[in-house]
């Protein structure tokens, strides 16, 4: 459920970046306050483990398909919430940078969706409550399945909301919800079972390993206040950035407001430049008497917005777009050729 | 020059799971000596080495490095004196580039950047890995990794080098280069190894460990002629000292 840059708006991306960045900052601070040096390499290597563990599959009975470890829950169980959140965030960052899984702008969303709910909600509020130290195997399974499911359901819901607020996808809230939640129910069941199986093995083989995590201080009754404060701050920050963007950029605010109101209209280019360009084109037009002229003129003066069923604009767009593309390709070849000859000489 | 002495007295160590690691090990290694530590798997070689710079602390007994006993307050000084090369270079090379890795120790000592730069260059030159400077460790061959791991220790200019299985995983040529390299070092060397030919080449003295005890301590060439001792410790003569079936 990695969100991609292509599907989110800058506002949503920015807010979630702010949220994730403040969570990372918070976790780092928590860790710095009482860090056992030993855990620095442990966290890094466990992050790599989460990657590697995805190569190992097991058969899901009765389905023929296979499942594997997800990551969030097992990290939380082994490392405690703060260290697990940081580790997961680093896993997602590497995924975004190297595997183009998710994206740079969507990274904030992804860290929040996959990390926050697993590490700061599901683990402390469900897993730790359901499965205190020395619980039976059944309790362990139950706890890890329930917490994985809850974590993923919340994460999936958050994906739906972020996509919705971004308004790039045309999917309706209800249908997207119906698509995402059941899939993640299944994924949660599998991940929970896989986590429990691994934890059970470790409990038997090296019981002492699970102790340190169990002793680390929980986020005392969850720092909900801090989280909310962080979110608010992030929202304000994003709002400030957005309005700065809007003020430096003539039609940005209009655009943002229309966006929020749900209409899909795009702003008109500014008038002065248009008249200037209109004069310019009198002399430079290659196809002055093209049959689309009439329609476009009217469209131009009244509502030259993109969504209008306007053949002239589309046509100009296509011509101009193709030409630009050709420019880019020529540019690329020129650059490459230029660099090569430079290297040779 | 008493500060390059390594001395262990009656070392005992018990693993957390209750198995005995060392059961009364004592030895004294003087300045400039090169000593091989040999023995079967599980004889306690690595455990012993880990005591020499405080990665493990003994249940009983003491370690003295130079003029200091190895205790918590002297730990930092001892670690600067004793350079430890681990068995698996992947465990030792944890930084993103060779340069960063070799610079890790000097930076921790708190040296200024120019000095760090100089030490890194020198250490890499010594092991013949100057060209690898900006490469990421995972792109290196086993032999290159080993050289860089050694450089990462040399850059701290230790007086005593402790190595665990330095020739493991190396192809014959890389192994030969390593042996030549080790011979050029003037440091006090303590090398745990199964490679008895390497021990014969590099070390004039050998400690034979068996089940956590030292069962022999003497000149390498002599000990390796003692077949009874070797078979007791699950070893055999170095190839070079066996009768060659072809040229016999």
């Amino acid at each position, binding site marked *: 459920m990695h969100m*991609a*840059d*292509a599907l989110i708006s800058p506002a949503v*991306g920015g807010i979630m970046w702010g949220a994730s960045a403040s969570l990372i900052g918070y976790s*780092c601070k928590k860790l710095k306050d009482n860090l056992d040096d*030993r855990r*620095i390499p442990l966290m*890094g*290597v466990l*992050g*790599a483990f989460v*990657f*590697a563990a995805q*190569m*190992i*599959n*097991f058969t899901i*009975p009765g389905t023929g398909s296979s499942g594997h470890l997800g990551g969030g829950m097992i990290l939380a169980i*082994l490392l405690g919430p703060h260290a697990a959140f*940081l580790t997961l965030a680093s896993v997602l960052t*590497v995924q*975004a*940078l*190297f595997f183009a899984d998710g*994206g740079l*702008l969507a990274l904030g969303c992804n860290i929040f969706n996959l990390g926050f709910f697993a590490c700061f909600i599901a683990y402390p509020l469900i897993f730790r409550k359901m499965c205190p130290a020395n619980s039976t195997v059944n309790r362990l399974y139950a706890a890890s399945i329930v917490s994985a499911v809850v974590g993923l359901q919340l994460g999936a819901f958050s994906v739906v909301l972020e996509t919705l607020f971004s308004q*790039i*996808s*045309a999917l309706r809230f209800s249908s997207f919800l119906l698509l995402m939640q059941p899939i993640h129910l299944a994924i949660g069941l599998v991940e929970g079972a896989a986590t429990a*199986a*691994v934890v*059970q093995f*470790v409990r038997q*083989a090296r019981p002492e*390993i699970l102790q340190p995590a169990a002793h680390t201080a929980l986020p005392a009754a969850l720092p909900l206040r801090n989280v909310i404060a962080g979110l608010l701050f992030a929202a304000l920050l994003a709002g400030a950035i957005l309005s700065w963007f809007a003020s430096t*950029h003539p039609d940005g605010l209009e655009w943002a407001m229309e966006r929020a109101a749900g209409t*899909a209209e795009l702003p008109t280019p500014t008038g002065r430049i248009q008249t200037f360009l209109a004069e310019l084109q009198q002399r430079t037009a290659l*196809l002055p008497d*093209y049959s689309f002229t009439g329609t476009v003129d009217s469209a131009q003066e009244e509502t030259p917005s*993109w*969504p209008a069923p*306007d*053949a*002239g604009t589309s046509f100009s*767009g296509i011509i*101009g777009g193709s*030409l*630009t*593309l050709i420019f880019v390709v020529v540019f690329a070849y020129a*650059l490459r050729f230029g*660099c090569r000859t430079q290297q040779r000489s | 020059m008493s500060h390059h002495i390594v001395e262990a007295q009656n070392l005992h160590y018990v693993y957390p799971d209750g198995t005995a690691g060392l059961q009364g090990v004592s030895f004294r290694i003087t300045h400039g000596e090169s000593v091989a530590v040999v023995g079967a798997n599980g004889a306690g070689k690595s455990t012993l080495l*880990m005591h020499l710079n405080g990665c493990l602390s003994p249940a009983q007994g003491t370690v003295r490095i130079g003029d200091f006993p190895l205790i918590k307050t002297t730990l930092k000084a001892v670690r*600067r004196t004793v350079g*430890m090369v681990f068995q698996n270079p992947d*465990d*030792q090379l944890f930084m993103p580039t060779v340069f960063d890795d070799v610079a890790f*120790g000097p930076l*921790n*000592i708190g040296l200024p950047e120019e000095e760090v730069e100089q030490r890194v260059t020198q250490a890499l030159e010594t092991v013949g890995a100057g060209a690898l400077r900006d*490469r990421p460790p995972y792109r290196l061959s086993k032999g290159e990794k080993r050289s860089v791991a050694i450089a990462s220790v040399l850059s701290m200019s230790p007086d005593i080098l402790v190595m665990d299985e330095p020739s493991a995983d190396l192809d014959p040529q890389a192994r030969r280069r390593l042996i030549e390299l080790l011979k050029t070092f003037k440091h006090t060397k303590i090398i745990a190894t199964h490679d008895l030919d390497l021990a014969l080449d590099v070390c004039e003295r050998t400690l034979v460990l068996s089940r956590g005890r030292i069962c022999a301590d003497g000149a390498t060439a002599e000990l390796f002629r003692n077949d009874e001792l070797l078979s007791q410790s699950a070893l055999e003569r170095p190839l070079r000292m066996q009768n060659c079936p072809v040229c016999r």
Partner: protein
Amino acid sequence: MASISRHFFDLGHLDDLAGASTPLHRLDPRAKLLATLVFIAVVVSFGKYEIAALIPFFVYPVFLISVGNIPFKCVLSRLVLALPFALLVGIFNPLIDRAPLSHLANFTISGGWISFSSIMLRFVLTVSSVLALIAVTGFSPVCSALLRLGTPKIFVVQLMLMHRYLFVLLDEASKMVGAKSLRTFENSTGGLRIYGAFTGSLLLRTMERAERIYSAMQCRGFDGDIKRTLPAEFGKRDILFLCGWSLLFLLLRAFNLPLIIGQILTGTM
């Protein structure tokens, strides 16, 4: 599994490319990172029906790829690997949004298809720029850039260590999987219990490795803080790169270049 092995292979490949020495490689990583962030933010800020105005933005990834001397194929193959999610969500747009938006000769194009194309364009632009960024910068310099830009050190250290041991652990896991598959038949991957033992062993090995790494760090004076020498200062070329591109992106955001060119050519202004 096959795909992960390929990922593993590819992962090193990007870093290899980053080892080259073109003028682009020599720029400060911060300049490249920030320019790419501005690029992405501007690209995703367009309306959902925008196509033409997005096209000029190809100039940036194409510039990085060309000047950085990166094989186009390398970026392309990764694009395909990353495609599923964007495709999955985007493909609903043509099905749901059927309102006619544009006429071209006798064809009517629905809003859904236009927004779908727009999503795909954004996808290609954003993903290829990030891949190109890594290929002309390398992971470790990106980490130092993050550190210099104020990311908490613990987090950056995590990134570095994780990236370093990714190779080691993927190697270990694939050896284990290989050894296991030699002794299991009929494609059975085993039940949950076997899975737990298998993955659990990998986990235990991993944790033991962490212990050894910690010892190795301690032996070289580690005191909880990983120190690194940081590269040279932000130079004039870096400022020029960052400001030049950012300015271009903002200009391209403000003026729909292809539409203007098209209108000039067709004389419809």
